[in-house]
């Protein structure tokens, strides 16, 4: 009886405070995320001995007035480090010098370092991407839960499609508690099947083909990742920053 009272009291309490607690929880979630992003940013900048071109001085003043600022001007952390202007559309701004060519010897010398940095790069990128996805999903859940109801008919239609075509039966044979283990096993077998082979060689396109230049491909991938809002744009920046840090180190050895 007492237990029942305890739980009902707890439930009432949670009901009253649910909104407040949800807010606090999400606030803490965002705070931890921000600290992670900020730390990664500092690590990347330390490694790169560089500051991103998105110098906050461009917009911090206006943004603070709207209570929505981007980076705090971190020149205060690294006062002696010069800001590099990267934006080519800034008229009168100095353009970056062309990258120096690296010798194969320095590359091999720094091979373990390169691998380690690449792993760090990937880790940072993936962590930020995942965090962005999570925050986006949570935002949607909190800000516009009704929007998810829009998808009910779609999910229902998918279920009916699977049922009428018999695909659900096909899939359900393998959908069991061992699925994950079976996927791992399949992965191992597939690795053996394609060992020493390039999967691309099986699907090569014959004949003449016109593909866009590398420059064009890069230009539009920037547009694509930008539309995933700033989290991924930021992740892209770490990637570039850390790549810069590698070239900086290898350049130093060249000298």
């Amino acid at each position: 009886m007492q237990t029942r009272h305890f739980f009902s009291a707890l439930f009432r309490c949670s009901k009253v405070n649910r909104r407040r607690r949800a807010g606090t929880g999400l606030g803490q979630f965002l705070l931890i995320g921000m600290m992670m992003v900020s730390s990664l940013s500092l690590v990347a900048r330390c490694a790169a001995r560089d500051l991103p071109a998105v110098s906050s001085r461009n917009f911090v003043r206006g943004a603070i007035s709207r209570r929505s600022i981007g980076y705090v001007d971190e020149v205060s952390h690294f006062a002696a480090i010069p800001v590099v202007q990267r934006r080519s559309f800034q008229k009168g701004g100095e353009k970056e010098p062309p990258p120096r060519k690296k010798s194969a010897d320095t590359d091999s010398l720094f091979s373990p370092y390169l691998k380690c940095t690449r792993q760090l790069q990937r880790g940072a990128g993936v962590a930020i991407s995942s965090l962005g996805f999570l925050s986006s999903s949570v935002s949607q859940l909190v800000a516009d839960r009704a929007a998810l109801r829009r998808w009910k008919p779609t999910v229902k239609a998918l279920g009916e499609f699977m049922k009428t075509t018999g695909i659900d039966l096909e899939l359900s044979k393998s959908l069991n508690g061992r699925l994950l283990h079976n996927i791992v096993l399949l992965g191992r077998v597939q690795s053996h099947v394609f060992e020493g082979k390039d999967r691309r060689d099986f699907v090569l396109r014959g004949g003449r083909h016109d593909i866009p230049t590398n420059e064009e491909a890069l230009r539009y991938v920037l547009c694509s990742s930008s539309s995933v809002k700033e989290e991924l744009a930021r992740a892209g920046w770490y990637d570039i920053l850390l790549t810069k840090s590698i070239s900086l180190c290898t350049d130093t050895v060249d000298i």
Partner: protein
Amino acid sequence: MKYSTAAYGDSMITAAEMDVTGRIDTRVSRVTRTRISDHIEVPEDDIVLLDVDHGGSTNHLRHFVAIDHENKEVVLSIRGTFSLSEMVVDVAGFSRELSAVGGSQYIFVLKPVYISHSLSSLYLFMFRVGPFCGGEAHSEMANMAESVWESAGLTVVKLLKKHKKYGFVLTGHSLGGGAACLLNILCHSNGGEIVSGRRTRCFAYAPPPSFTPLEVAANAVKDCTAYVHEADAIPFLSIDSVRHFFSSIGVIQTYAERTKFLPQLALSLGFADPDKTLLDDVRRAATKRLKPKAGAPLLAIPAASAVWMRERKDTGKFETKVCDPRKMAMVPIFVGSSNMLQDHFPPTYEHALHNLEDE
């Protein structure tokens, strides 16, 4: 206190507001615009339409329209999966016959909202009726492609009318790439009627298979290029490929039922090699074509070429091979790499394209 919090930056302000009010401000901030402008190297004023709010309408995918004066292009970029509702779009992969835009098969409806916008922008809004040359497309992705056009089409058309010599570029990553490919087909139908006959090109990064048969949209396919990064599994995901994948899983399950646990564990941990019979069975299951089901055809990426990038272990540079999307549609889903999801993220694509070997 507000000043003190503001000094920490955007994320801290969002966290504080969340704590106090229990709500998240999902509006596009000036920071976002500045950051996007900086990232794509286009002045802020040239980002004409920006719809990338987390809390925006779920009736269409997030997108933005920018005008690139340097390269004389109007660019429509569509965002990929970045929330739960977009995951639903991905999963609803049964096909629907894609409607065309314009021509005798279509009904033109004058939409009052556009008329009120301005008399000069009387805009013909198209509803889908009937099939498009027998083409079948990923159901929700096709809906999203049309919805994005409903949202951004007017702006794009206006810009193209204003800048007579500019081309139109569609781009997107993942789900956005798939939607961009389908929108590319719509923009090419009837001689590019909806884009005033302007040349439309599409750059799709990691798009899932979304259309079949490619022959019915030959012009659109010719102007579309897809990019695939190393072990990324998404460009191979469709209901058809999932069926084939589960067929392979069935072979593994049969093996697991007749084998003791320890040899299985040794194989999964990499301490033992699979026997020849198992290799042959998996190979056979992967290549044997299952009978297609209605609504789950063999979809392909509607592009002329797919540039598949792979990192050279020695130099860290990426080398490319030009592949045929039709053949790629039959490639089994590969789960032998631990990077199959990691390689899908936009930063890894950017990294690869930043480090491509010289052409």
